[in-house]
């Protein structure tokens, strides 16, 4: 018994650096082959410091590494931070304002260059030099970031990212304690690239990587080929595990309908885009074993412009929240298997989430039914009856359907409503800009990392609202000084006591929900349709399906 325990302990210790026995065995049996993926289009630029899409972030996981990473594990374990290029999690000092990492030795880029501390510091500078989309938010707390944001070209992050080449350490200094810094460092925007990577958007040109795979070919109109990195030796199974397929072939251009048929015929293994709604019934009955339904930390919601009539009136906003039948919306999204009704901001199973629903027939923890009488009364009380409301939605089948349904609801409670579907390419920025005077819209928010602030602080803090800007993510224009102060308090508390901070976030969630700056519609689930030959499907809550952890032979 003792021997067994010792062996188990040894295996556990080795897990960080060597293959776990099970994986080693599976690798022998299933290693090789080409996994074929499909998407309607490419995810934009290949540059991991710039790309800000689910599609891109998912594909980067077996390719790039940061100092830390989200654990490559199934389910909620995927939210755990583990050391990646760093030997261990950082030593935190200076009252939570200094993080010291020791870089692993012997890691090479796919180009053959050795990874060194100079690459790390250059990569942090590059986040600002290429004006990365989160440089002004996630990484603005690094000492020297203000100068880098003001003058991107000459960014040095002096005093912010300090290296000791001899000791192989990197020290990151931040201006004030940040409980979420490690999450931010584990995102693709903070991966380490070779120091000589040009400080410009690399577009379609692959950048050498440290992960198990590398991008070997890319044509945004045709596809991407990802092959094994010849210089990769697994250093941590939980941060960057070796993969099963030799090649990942990602082809672009097929419609969703054609992609489903290709998978059914065994010509492809998976598709990125959502399954067409008219195929759901057939696939759900005939191809059950090829479908995987996984929870997402996401929120479909309808921001109501708190600075424009009629939704500058709290009662008018609450009326809409009472009137919307979430079950109907769930039905439009494909049914209860694919979505669940929601009233509040934080998604289920998310830090800080405590069930809460004030805008329902029987207010309490869960949504039960719309309360149209209450909604009509609130519209009367608000004095906004008969006002005109335009709903701006994305020009996709599902968003259009939701828009048309919301138009019917608003009409039924006394507004004169119409819907405007606009191109998906511009809708998200269009609804953010106050110059466009958008009263109501339909949009979605998918978490960047598992923290309540990623929903509440980002979507509803005063700082997230920017007049006349396309990047005003507080679409509702909500700003409540008291709630703002509480969010700040929760952020600060998270540095020392995350559990207490999450309690406070739950309180903020309730307060924001009560003010109804936006109406929660439903929480979606991810439906993955895979080929018959694909095995070992594993879904990570942070970056979705772990592509190279599945096998095709």
């Amino acid at each position, binding site marked *: 018994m003792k021997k067994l325990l010792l062996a188990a302990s040894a295996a556990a210790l080795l897990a960080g650096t060597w293959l776990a026995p099970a994986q080693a065995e599976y690798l022998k049996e299933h290693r090789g082959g080409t996994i074929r993926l499909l998407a309607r289009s490419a995810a934009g630029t290949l540059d991991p410091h710039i790309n800000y899409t689910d599609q891109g972030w998912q594909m980067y996981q077996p390719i790039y590494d940061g100092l830390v990473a989200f654990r490559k594990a199934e389910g909620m374990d995927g939210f755990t931070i583990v050391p990646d290029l760093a030997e261990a999690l950082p030593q935190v000092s200076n009252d939570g304002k200094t993080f010291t990492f020791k870089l692993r030795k012997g890691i090479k880029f796919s180009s053959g260059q050795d990874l060194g501390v100079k690459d790390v510091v250059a990569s942090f500078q590059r986040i600002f030099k290429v004006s990365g989309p989160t440089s002004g938010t996630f990484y603005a707390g690094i000492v020297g970031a203000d100068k880098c944001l003001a003058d991107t070209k000459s960014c040095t992050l002096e005093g912010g990212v300090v290296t000791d080449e001899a000791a192989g350490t990197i020290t990151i200094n931040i201006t004030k304690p940040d409980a979420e810094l490690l999450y931010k460092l584990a995102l693709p925007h903070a991966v380490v690239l070779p120091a000589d990577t040009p400080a410009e958007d690399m577009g379609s040109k692959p950048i050498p990587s440290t992960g198990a795979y590398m991008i070997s070919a890319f044509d945004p109109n045709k596809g991407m080929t990802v092959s094994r990195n010849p210089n990769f030796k697994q250093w941590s199974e939980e941060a960057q595990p070796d993969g099963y397929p030799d090649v990942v072939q990602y082809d672009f251009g097929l419609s969703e309908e054609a992609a489903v048929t290709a998978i059914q015929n065994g010509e492809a293994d998976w598709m990125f885009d959502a399954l067409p709604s*008219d195929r*759901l019934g057939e696939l759900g*009955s005939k191809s059950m074993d090829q479908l995987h339904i996984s929870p997402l930390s996401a929120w479909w919601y309808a921001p109501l412009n708190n600075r424009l009539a009629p939704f500058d009136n709290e009662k008018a906003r609450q009326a809409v929240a009472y009137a919307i039948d979430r079950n*109907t919306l769930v039905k439009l999204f494909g*049914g209860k*298997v694919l979505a669940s009704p929601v009233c509040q901001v934080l998604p289920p199973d998310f830090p800080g989430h405590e069930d809460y629903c004030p805008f329902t027939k029987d207010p309490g923890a869960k949504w039960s039914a719309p309360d149209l009488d209450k909604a009509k009364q609130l519209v009367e009380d608000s004095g906004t009856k008969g006002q005109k409301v335009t709903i701006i939605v994305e020009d996709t089948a599902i968003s259009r359907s939701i828009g048309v*349904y919301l138009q019917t609801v608003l009409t039924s409670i006394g507004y004169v409503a119409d819907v405007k579907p*606009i191109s998906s390419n511009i809708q998200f920025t269009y609804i953010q800009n106050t110059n466009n005077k958008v009263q109501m819209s339909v949009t979605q928010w998918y978490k960047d990392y598992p923290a309540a602030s990623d929903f509440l602080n980002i979507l509803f803090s005063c700082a997230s609202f920017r007049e006349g800007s396309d990047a005003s993510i507080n679409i509702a224009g909500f700003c409540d000084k008291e709630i703002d102060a509480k969010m700040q308090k929760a952020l600060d508390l998270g540095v020392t006591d995350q559990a207490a901070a999450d309690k406070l976030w739950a309180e903020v969630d309730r307060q924001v929900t009560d003010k109804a700056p936006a109406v929660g519609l439903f929480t979606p689930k991810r439906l993955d349709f895979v080929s018959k030959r694909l095995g070992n499907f594993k879904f990570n809550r942070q970056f979705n399906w772990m592509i190279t952890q599945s096998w095709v032979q």
Partner: protein
Amino acid sequence: MSNVAVAAPRKTRGPWAVAFAKLARDRAAMASLAVFLLIVLACLSAPLYAKWAGVDPFASTLDAVIQIDGADVPVMEQSTEGLGLGYTPLGPTWRLGNYFLGADSQGRDVMARMLYGGLSSLLISGAATIFTLILGTAAGLIAGYFGGITDTVLSRFLDVLWAFPIYLLAISLSIVTIAHGITIGPIEIESGSLWLPVIIIGIVYVPYVARPIRGQVLSLRNSEFVLAAINLGVPGPRILWRDILPNVTTTLIVFVPLMMALNMLTESALSFLSIGVQPPAASWGTIIQDGQALLYTRPLVALVPGLAIAVSVMALNVFGDGLRDALDPRSKVRLGRD
């Protein structure tokens, strides 16, 4: 006394009567006109049909239940097999007034929407045709008659408009105006108004009408009766109105069905791309767009409006060809007594 008998002058019919007679004898043109009029009548009955059927073709009715042979049937049926994914709208019942063509993804009666959609499509294409003809004729008359700098400026402007790919221009104008509408001085057109697609389609086709009209006016400008009127000191606008316009009328008449067919196609394309008629209003283009997501389970939702567009456009084109032949004095259509 002369034995020579003088023949009584033969009574001839006017050019319009000859044209009508020619048209009436063109079976294909008349059949097309009949088909088109039938479609127009059906579409005009849209409000009556919706009232009779007791449906609101613009409101989501996802929870509606209808009766078929005494049995309750939900308009949106949830899949019950396997994982129970997705909802399928009711298929065609083939019973008038009771979801004859089935339901769309919002649970709305497709037949009622088809009729309303046709009404929108016809209204927009008809109004845009009038708009195009008025603007195009005015531009063609002025440019052709006054010549000089007026002609140069107008012609270059039309050239610029002509140089843009039509759909690209229409899409650009739609995107700019779709969210906020148009405000020109005291005239304000709201973003959801049907007048927006009318104006956009009307504008993009102006060169199609203006250029041939200008060509005709240039030739008429040098004809003897116009020169005589000028020398007699008749004012230009009066010459345009009384002498030149009547001579281009036949061309304009031929343009009506042809432009209407073209406008109907353009309207459908813009609505399909979400930049024409705005939801929940219907046009045949928006119904095709709605049906696109149901092609696999309910293909009729997209096929029926597609067919309606094809039949209407074909009818208008065949009728337009017949009209052109009838109004053309050089036409080879034989008339029995003439």
